[in-house]
């Protein structure tokens, strides 16, 4: 019986070893070995994670924090020490299990999906690099460690999106993803520096146990203005949230996520739905007591989340690329989680139900969204296109996939008893209890939209007549490696809600808060029924439009003679175009051009002028040297006079 610390090390080391061995030695030459290694090690990692979870939840210490190990990485001034450690508490354990499990599944899946790819070894190496950095992120004991792995996650995402680097679209998408998140991270870093400067520590425990009082009177010079340290902390919290803002692709930094679908589908399923993108949510959840103290930032978080939720859901209703639809639905779900965290604020007080709900939704969402992506992947693998036009009628050909898809879609639509129902219901309830009725309404509306577009996808993909020659000709089959994970994932997609609910309500609390906590909460048993009602309604609409006998599929699919509003939504409110104009015109055209002009003309010009001036002086000297003897003799006489008057002799 190995102890938990060893297990903890194992969890981190196994994926890293996979990365190192695959990257350095196995490589692309013997891809089979690479794949086998990756699957085995990630499986072992999952096993140890599960064991750690089991030990933890069955032990007496359960809700408290446990630090398995904590090594000093690099000491800064005094208390300010960057450490690399492993923090165990309900949240991180949950994330550990989820990440290891998902990456295990996806590794299996990739064996099938990447079979034809010649760079398979590289793929598995990068995948393990990602899971290593993600695990390091979730077990971080301090901000600095979190930032380190935060960046590593970002870079591995960059490398995986651009995995097919001969596809220009993939390359540019990866670049965009990295730069946007990097942009957010720069604020994150600034926030870390600022907070650590004020607080004098990176440690989560220290930061989470802050109270504002000691900082009220001290001031800090922020360059532009002088502010009190307490407001500096609030600024810092917002800056830190900005990191999560970018990583979780909240509006308006959302555009990289849909474009990131250029990457291989397994990548999308693990990085861009289940794990990495929830890092932002995880960050806020991890620092919740701190955010609660800097209350105002919570409101911001709530609104950002809520808006993204609706915005993305609306766009998702019109897309035809299935991966993009799933991407937008991911955005929308992330919006749910984010605003649930924000919604915990009532006036000056805090309720914790939102926190629990959000973390719960992270948990459930991971499974069903991942499985949805994998299903999409196998569909694409069969019909070789992302486009709904080319699908349809796949129900007969891929029965297992069909069943699993149904489960996951019920889950995401919040139909009981599927997992999504419980977490989403909690979130909506939290919004209601937080007395944010506007957001509550939006949440209900969005759950309706979610159901609608998910079933739209479902009907168009599986029902109706086949619209693809390959499908018609019956070349479609279910690959074992690609179906197995889907089937396995369907189980938690179905059950994680019921089983998880008790666990979460028992263990999951944000920890000790230093603000008044509201205990007496409004009870509203009617909310679940309303939610279900909305969902069913949306389902019926979707069925009527896309699956009912008299549904006009062709008309549903062609984009011609659409009304303007539809076009706008279909083009994602022209956001990508806006981005490109801003970047091209402002950054490249504006700032960069001006600064280069300044360098090339002003600085170099001054240099050239000084050289020219010296040369002119030289010409002066040489023109005097005209070989004219009387002039030379004159210089002798003049010289005497010069030194007589300027020689400073006391004459």
């Amino acid at each position: 019986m190995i102890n938990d610390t060893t297990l903890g090390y194992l969890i981190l080391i196994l994926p890293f070893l996979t990365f190192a061995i695959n990257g350095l030695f196995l490589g692309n030459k013997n891809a089979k070995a690479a794949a086998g290694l990756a699957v085995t090690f990630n499986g072992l990692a999952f096993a140890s994670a599960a064991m750690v979870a089991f030990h933890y939840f069955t032990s007496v210490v359960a809700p408290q924090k446990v630090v398995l190990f904590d090594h000093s990485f690099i000491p800064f001034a005094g208390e300010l020490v960057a450490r690399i450690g492993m923090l165990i508490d309900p949240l991180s354990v949950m994330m550990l299990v989820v990440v290891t499990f998902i990456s295990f599944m996806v590794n299996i899946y990739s064996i099938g999906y990447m079979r034809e790819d010649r760079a398979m070894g590289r793929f598995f190496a990068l995948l393990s690099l990602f899971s290593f950095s993600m695990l390091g992120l979730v077990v971080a004991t301090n901000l600095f460690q979190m930032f380190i792995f935060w960046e590593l996650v970002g870079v591995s995402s960059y490398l995986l999106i651009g995995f097919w680097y001969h596809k220009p679209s993939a390359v540019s998408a990866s670049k965009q993803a990295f730069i946007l998140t990097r942009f957010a991270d720069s604020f994150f870093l600034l926030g870390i520096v600022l907070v650590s400067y004020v607080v004098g520590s990176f440690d989560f425990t220290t930061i989470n146990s802050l109270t504002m009082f000691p900082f009220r009177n001290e001031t800090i010079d922020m360059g532009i203005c002088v502010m009190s340290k307490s407001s500096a902390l609030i600024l810092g919290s917002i800056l830190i949230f900005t990191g999560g803002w970018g990583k979780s692709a909240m509006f308006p930094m959302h555009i990289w996520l849909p474009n990131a679908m250029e990457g291989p589908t397994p990548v999308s399923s693990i990085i861009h739905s289940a794990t990495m993108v929830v890092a932002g949510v995880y960050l806020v959840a991890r620092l919740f007591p701190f955010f609660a103290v800097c209350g105002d930032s919570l409101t911001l978080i709530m609104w950002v989340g809520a808006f993204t939720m609706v915005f993305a859901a609306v766009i998702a209703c019109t897309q035809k690329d299935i991966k993009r639809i799933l991407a937008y639905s991911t955005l929308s779900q992330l919006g749910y989680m984010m605003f649930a965290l924000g919604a915990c604020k009532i006036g000056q007080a805090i309720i914790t139900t939102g926190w629990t709900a959000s973390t719960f939704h992270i948990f459930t969402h991971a499974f069903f969204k991942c499985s949805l992506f994998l299903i999409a992947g196998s569909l694409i693998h069969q019909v070789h296109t992302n486009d709904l036009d080319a699908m349809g009628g796949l129900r007969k050909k891929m029965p297992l996939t069909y069943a699993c898809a149904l489960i996951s879609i019920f889950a995401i639509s919040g139909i009981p008893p599927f997992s999504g129902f419980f977490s989403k219901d909690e979130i909506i309830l939290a919004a209601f209890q937080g007395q944010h009725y506007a957001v509550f309404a939006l949440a209900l509306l969005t759950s309706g939209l979610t159901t609608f577009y998910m079933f739209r996808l479902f009907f168009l993909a599986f029902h109706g007549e086949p619209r693809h020659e390959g499908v018609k000709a019956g070349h479609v089959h279910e690959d074992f490696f690609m179906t197995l994970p889907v089937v396995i994932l369907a189980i938690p997609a179905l059950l994680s809600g019921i089983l998880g609910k008790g666990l979460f309500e028992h263990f999951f609390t944000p920890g000790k808060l230093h603000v008044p906590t509201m205990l007496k909460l409004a009870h509203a048993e009617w909310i679940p029924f309303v939610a279900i009602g909305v969902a069913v309604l949306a389902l019926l609409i979707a069925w009527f439009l896309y699956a009912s006998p008299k549904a006009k599929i062709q008309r549903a699919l062609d984009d011609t003679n659409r009304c303007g509003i539809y076009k706008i939504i279909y083009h994602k409110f022209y956001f990508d175009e806006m981005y490109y104009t801003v970047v091209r015109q402002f950054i490249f055209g504006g700032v960069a051009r001006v600064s280069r002009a300044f360098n090339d003309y002003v600085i170099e010009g001054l240099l050239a002028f000084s050289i020219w001036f010296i040369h002119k002086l030289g010409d002066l000297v040489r023109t005097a040297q005209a070989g004219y003897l009387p002039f030379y003799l004159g210089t002798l006489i003049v010289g005497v006079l010069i030194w007589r008057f300027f020689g400073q002799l006391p004459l």
Partner: protein
Amino acid sequence: MDILLFNLIWVIPLLTVLVCIPIPASHAKLLRGLHTASASAVLLMVCYLAYRVFMLSGTPASDAASPLVLRFLTDIPWLTMFNAHYIVGADGLNILLLALTAFIVWGGVLVSYNIKGNQKVFFALIQLLATSVYGVYMSFDLVLFFVFYEMEALCMYLMIACYGSGRRDYGGKKLTLTLAFGSSMILATLFGLYFESGANSWNLIEIAKTTIPMEFQMWAFPLMFMGFAVSSSLFPFHFWSPDGHSAAPTAVSMLAAGVMMKMGAYGCLRVAMFLMPEAAKVWLPYVVALLIFNVVLGPFIALRHKDLKYITAYSSISHLGLIFLGLAAMTPVGLRGASLQMISHGFLTGLFFATIGMIYERTHTRDITEMGGIMRKMPFLGVGFVIAGFAGLGLPGFSGFIAESNIFIGAFQQESTLTRIVTILAILSITTTAVYILQTANRMLHGPLPQKYEGLTDGCFREKLVIVVLVACLLFIGVCPGPFADLLDQSIAPIFAKISAATQPVTSGIGG
């Protein structure tokens, strides 16, 4: 024994040159072998000595009274005409810089195996350059320091103008003359230090014991600091570096950007700030304003360039700006960050220029718009370049991140308003760095492969070795920075002690 080895560091390259004189230039293989051997020998020696210094850390120095804790201290009367001594010694800072130099020189020798022209002269010049750089980092006597510091001008011009590419004469002249301009400013103040300090000695340690009159410091410090900053391409004296680097052959770019540009920053720290802390306290908060160009605008300029070497040159300009940010912070963390950045950027830019040189050898162009998709043809070099890029944009796991985080945290502890603003801007501009590095990498390595590059081959063993070693260094510092931090802290502690002991003069008037 160690002392002897330590002194051999700068002697061996010189001996190599002397040994090679009788060998006719036609025996290129033999010459290359000799130079490679000597470079490797020096590398091994330096690494061993660095290890020794690390082991010795904590034990008191041979001379208890000296403000610096120096190992292997050697002090021989040298020029009695103006009582200059031959004083060399090692502490954490300069031993690490020596190690960096040894690595870069070794790499430089390896990458220039098939350089066009008279190889005998070229390698001799590289060794001379190495001598001068080693000497600068080792010496604690100002005359000796300056002699070595100025020596590089002699080699640089010839190497660039004769073996370079593009506007080589222009670039070489620009580089050499600008550096000479800087060192002339230094020389003018050196005499002042000798006579005004009252120590009547060129010994850095002796001068450090005295306090130099304020009215002298007030004009001497900016002169000297700027003089050193010229070779670290601090705005507005950065103009030499893009043209110089782009004209220079690979090895010279590596040496120039990797170690020579650090000599300036090292001088700023070791001589200017260490000897004239009072003036430093007055001036540095204003010097920071210049960094806005280096750190914030530098990356933007890199964005607009198409030539790989120009891009890298501007990235070096911005990275060196960070060094000065760390120096201007005048806090232990900041100074440590600056020193770390010197070392890390040395390896980083060495790797950059090495890969660029290798790619240029094959594609015969450095214009990124003409390249594309060469990752497919030369994956190893491509990966090397990408790694250099990631290290350059401060990715955790590489040394750059450690240095930058130190600098940012350290600079943020500096209270002055201007420094705060610049620090914030610097932190925010890590995005721009990412933009130009990714843009370059994508344009060059990714996308479709032009027809003319079908025949390209990946790096040979020699080149791969260089890349692997440099990457290993970057990773090593990045993954376990602890020992390096300890080593540097010992040598920075006395400098910081002197700075913090310096009392702010009552008249904070500039140019008093």
